[in-house]
């Protein structure tokens, strides 16, 4: 075998690439992971809000979320040898107006149809679950099997374990093109060399689109900017994952650490520079205002850190996890649209099944790459 060859070459060292590398290495495959940035997990994977949710998900990706929460998340820390701060104490999605409650009821109906245990509760029932909630909350949806985890830890825990199992990681290496040999995806051309893979997985977030373009494929991804805030550690107050019908903030308190992690959509895309995401003072202020309207008790808690992150928003807001007809040997895993963290262990497992068994254990037809064409 030539020096830069492996059974599988993965483009992108985010949590999808690292999780796939782990399950593939565990399954006996040789793996090379190529990451553009110097640090592993510098994209959305180390910038996200840590939600491990089923509720609020599109029915097309809900089965993946449910598989991960049932079969992988509960034992992930043990499996990887790192406490990924997983906490499965439910998700409250909060509403303050009648219109909010309509939105929540709609989402809840769809999820119940898919077999998820989620229900609408009153404001007082929500306050019985989380006594810090203000009286402004009129109702909520409640999914007791949702939760949260630490994405920075989870990403690096997959990386660390994959590396221990022999996966080769090269960072600071940007892939420029995918090349075909006898019709199959075979080689990726990177800044510092060529890498040959029996299978090539593109899990490069927003970077996936230009790469796929090099073999004549396209996936409609757009950059959307999200911002995140972290507070000083506080005494343990509540374990639930929180979201709102108004989407005016989401967040949780880190398990076994005590800091709160809150997120909000930035809205500053028209003014943001492309490339390295920069946080704004405006979004942090808006997030704090919104959070305090639900949780006035947090007013004196200090924000110690804030950052921004681009998400790879797909045209229909669910990912592409797919083989392609045109380019055998290529697997696409991108477009996670701002909610990929919760499903990432399950996606890593599915990607390994696609390589090792030739097909994923779940039906992913609704997440195909060619669903966007004009019908």
């Amino acid at each position, binding site marked *: 075998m030539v020096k830069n060859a492996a059974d599988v070459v993965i483009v992108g060292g985010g949590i999808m690439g690292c999780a796939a590398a782990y399950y593939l290495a565990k399954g006996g495959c040789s793996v090379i992971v190529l990451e553009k940035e*110097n*640090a*592993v*997990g*510098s994209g959305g994977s*180390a910038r996200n809000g840590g939600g491990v949710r089923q509720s609020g998900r599109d029915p097309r990706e809900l089965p993946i979320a449910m598989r991960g929460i049932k079969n992988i998340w509960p034992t992930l820390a043990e499996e990887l040898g790192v406490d990924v701060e997983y906490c499965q104490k439910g998700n409250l999605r909060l509403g303050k107006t009648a219109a909010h409650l309509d939105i929540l009821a709609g989402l809840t109906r769809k999820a119940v149809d898919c077999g998820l245990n989620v229900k609408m509760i009153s404001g007082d029932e929500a306050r019985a679950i989380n006594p810090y909630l203000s009286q402004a909350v009129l109702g909520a949806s409640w999914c007791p099997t949702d939760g949260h985890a630490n994405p*920075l*830890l989870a*990403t*690096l825990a997959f*990386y*660390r374990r994959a*590396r*221990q199992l022999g996966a*080769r*990681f*090269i*960072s*600071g*290496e940007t892939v420029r093109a995918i090349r075909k040999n006898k019709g199959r995806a075979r080689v990726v051309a990177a*800044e*510092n060399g060529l890498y040959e893979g029996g299978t090539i997985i593109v899990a490069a977030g927003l970077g996936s689109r230009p790469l796929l373009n090099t073999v004549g494929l396209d996936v409609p991804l757009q950059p959307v900017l999200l911002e995140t805030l*972290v*507070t*000083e*550690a506080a005494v343990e107050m509540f374990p639930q994952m929180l979201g709102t019908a108004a989407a005016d903030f989401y967040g949780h308190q880190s398990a076994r*650490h005590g800091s709160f992690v809150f997120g909000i959509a930035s809205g500053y895309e028209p003014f943001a520079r492309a490339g390295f995401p920069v*946080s704004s*003072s*405006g979004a*942090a*202020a808006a997030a*704090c*205002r919104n*959070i*305090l309207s639900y949780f006035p008790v*947090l*007013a*004196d*808690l*200090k*924000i*110690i*850190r*804030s*950052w921004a992150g681009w998400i790879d928003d797909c045209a229909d807001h669910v990912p592409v996890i797919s083989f392609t007809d045109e380019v055998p040997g290529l697997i696409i895993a991108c477009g996670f649209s701002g909610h990929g963290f919760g499903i990432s262990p399950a996606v890593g497992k599915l990607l390994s099944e696609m390589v090792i068994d030739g097909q994923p254990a779940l039906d992913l037809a609704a997440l195909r790459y060619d669903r966007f064409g004009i019908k």
Partner: protein
Amino acid sequence: MLERKDLGGYIAAPDDDLIVCRCEEITKGEIRHAIHDGLFTLAEIRRFLRAGMGLCQGQTCGRLVKALLARELGVAPAAVEPATARSPVRPVEMRVLADNQERDDG
């Protein structure tokens, strides 16, 4: 470009118990172990251990962690890419951040 090779076996040091990051109570040994586990950048060490991610945001331990990383990797501290500094510069209460809108106080 960084090929993430093995650094060789971990050799325990007599002062591995020393606390390097006081805010998050992270010891020298934990940091050295993390480096030997493949966390080869300051960003990764921060993300994995929260060293330099507490109340002071690494103003106290930043240089120490950098020196530890440089030594384990066998490079000069200046060759280590600095960690990203992030706002706010000092911890700020949420009530203060929330209060950035103009209002009419009469």
